[in-house]
């Protein structure tokens, strides 16, 4: 009986219309806004920045491709933009003088161990770029903490250059705020210009591609926790503003902690996640052995995300009402 009419219509479950957002569109918007800190890094570190960015991106895409091929998945997913973001983010977290081979290893680890072994896009627990960086930090600790000054700064001895946070932690030297804002300081590629990172982050916030709770929660909690310490002893502890603008905090808060896959699904979860990151950043920077702690803070809180999702289910409309 059914054979009588050949279906000329497309059958599908409702709804039958979709809005214009798509995964690659979101990803490429993030890539677009990342171009701001990328531009800053190229301005301040010239060839070093270009070299690291290129190697990181190429090896990220290549690893993604090889794994997709091995797992018999659709290889066109290489260009969904997610591996590109990982490549750029990884490059932005690396010191400008890092050897090319290290960058390549980092990119491989980021995609292979950070993403593909979990099942690829959407299934990873940790931010892949930070997994790559954490691996490099553990594998090549000296190289990862050796900083090169920006090309535009005339420094006599290039060998012993400290980041603004390292300078404060080990020798109590503060970098000028003006340099922090523009980015004329030592540090990893993306730790340079605070202003450009904030602009990029605001664009993403405006487009609603990142959860506003996360950067707001992180920055506020770092400000509050460090502010409390500073009020207690302004000699020993840095000004909270200095903590906001120095190091990788802004890049982490706007571009890494907000990674959709590895951040909580629920609003309450996002708040806890963000405040947790802020707290850990202050804890590691002030009391830890390292001057910077954004990477570990985000990775640690990433591991809590499944738990947060589980225990912060939002109240359903009408929940708790009496029948």
């Amino acid at each position: 009986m059914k054979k009588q009419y050949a279906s000329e219509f497309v059958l599908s479950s409702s709804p039958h219309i979709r809005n214009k957002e798509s995964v690659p569109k979101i990803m490429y918007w993030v890539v677009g806004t990342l171009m701001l800190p990328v531009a800053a890094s190229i301005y301040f570190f010239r060839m070093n920045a270009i070299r690291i960015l290129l190697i990181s991106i190429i090896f990220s895409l290549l690893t993604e491709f090889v794994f997709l091929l091995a797992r018999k998945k659709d290889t066109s997913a290489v260009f969904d933009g997610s591996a590109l973001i990982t490549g750029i983010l990884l490059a932005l977290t690396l010191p400008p003088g890092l050897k090319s081979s290290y960058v390549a290893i980092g990119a491989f680890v980021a995609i292979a161990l950070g993403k593909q072994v979990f099942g690829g896009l959407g299934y990873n627990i940790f931010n892949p770029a930070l997994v790559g960086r954490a691996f490099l930090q553990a594998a090549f600790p000296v190289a990862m903490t050796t900083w090169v000054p920006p090309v535009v700064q005339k420094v006599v001895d290039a060998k012993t250059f400290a980041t603004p946070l390292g300078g404060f932690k080990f020798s109590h030297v503060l970098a000028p705020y003006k340099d922090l804002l523009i980015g004329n300081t030592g540090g990893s590629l993306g730790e340079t210009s605070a202003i450009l990172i904030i602009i990029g982050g605001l664009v993403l916030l405006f487009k609603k591609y990142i959860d506003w709770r996360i950067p707001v929660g992180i920055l506020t909690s770092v400000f509050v926790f460090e502010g409390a310490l500073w009020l207690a002893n302004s000699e020993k502890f840095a000004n909270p503003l200095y903590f906001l603008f120095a190091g990788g905090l802004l890049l982490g808060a706007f571009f890494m902690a907000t990674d959709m896959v590895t951040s909580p699904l629920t609003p309450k979860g996002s708040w806890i996640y963000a405040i947790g990151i802020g707290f850990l950043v202050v804890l590691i920077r002030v009391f830890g052995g390292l001057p910077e702690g954004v990477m570990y803070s985000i990775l640690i809180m990433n591991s809590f995300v499944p738990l947060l999702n589980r225990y912060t289910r939002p109240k359903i409309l009408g929940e708790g009402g009496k029948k």
Partner: protein
Amino acid sequence: MNKKTFPKGVHPPDKKELSKEFKIEVFPAGKTVVIPLHQHTGAPAEPLVKKKDRVLKGQKIGEAKGFISANIHSPVSGTVKSIEPHVTPLGKNVLSVIIENDGEDELFPEIKPLKNDPHSYSPEEVRNAVREAGIVGLGGAAFPTSVKLSPPKEYPVDTVILNGAECEPYLTTDYRLMLERVDEIIEGAEILKETVGASKIYLGVEDNKPDVIELYEQKLNGRADFEVAPLKTKYPQGGEKMLIKAILGREVPTGGLPFHVGVLVQNVGTTYAVYETLKTGMPLIERVLTITGEGVKEPKNLQVRIGTMFKDIIEFAGGYVGKPGKLIMGGPMMGISQWTDIVPVLKATSGILVLPEEELPKKKEYNCIGCNSCTEHCPMNLVPTRIVTLAKNERFEDAKDWGLMDCIECGTCSYVCPANIPLVHWIRFGKSGYIKLKKKSEK
């Protein structure tokens, strides 16, 4: 204007301009009508006629079985050609009475109003008349209206909300009705109010229909017991729970119904049908619907008999434009896509939508990237992606804890999903899985 709304939701392009200017036309009944005996929520009706019987317009041909069920009537006069399963827009083959229309529209003699003044009916009489006439919710859910009009005694209803939001894009059925049947709707609403013993009526209308709002405000002229409630244009504003939240600020408890918070929500089309039945005694055998979409030549608003074939209506609207991609009963957000146009109009067919092939979303499905769009927009404040992941893995109990059964299937989550995951589809899968699980454990 004090516009009310509910939290979250989406703004799909409304596309109502395609058909909103066209007055309701009467569509002549086709040569053959197919009347499925199960078009409503609840138990199917039982046939009262046999093959080759002659039936008259308005004659009861299907008897409601059980409390939640509805009578079925013949929309035309003619001969029963056969009683056999026929495919319906709901996708299943349903036992249907197929009637050859003799074109004479001979009225069933028993059809006359019980009383001359519809206002003089007692509540009990209203319920009986509505039940007898087989009226169901015409907004799309097809829930028997008489049941809605009989809330349990321990839940007094104080407010009636007329649902004129029509938040589905494209559809203009309720819009046209509200413009063209003003007095009938107002009177119908008053009768509903009296029937359930409420003291206040609100007419909820989205602000993309300013002419309707103005018209009714003028008509009601500042009445204290009957107010127009202008609503923000936002999907799914017309969902019962959203409407109650927006207008009254009350939240229907999970798993509950509007009467739990003292409200009766009735679609304007249903209200009109109730009024007509009380006035003329004619059961529900026709309804107003919109035939629209970029895929039909001349979108229209039509008054058609139940049982008319989609194909006939589409031809009446000038046929398809280009290659039709999708044929949908209802709106684009919650409507049901059809595999053939040889299906009958049901009581709940609020619209027929044809989307041409080029209008269909062409998006690849990705893994969920946890973007939270669905959570940010879900009007029920659920976390759809979480429910879907659990449902996909057949963890129905856990999915239920996350609100699986509270989903109203409005389609908002699928609409906004950048990964193009058919979330609603998986939630339906989860719901049926959960129900099966429950049945099994009860045994």
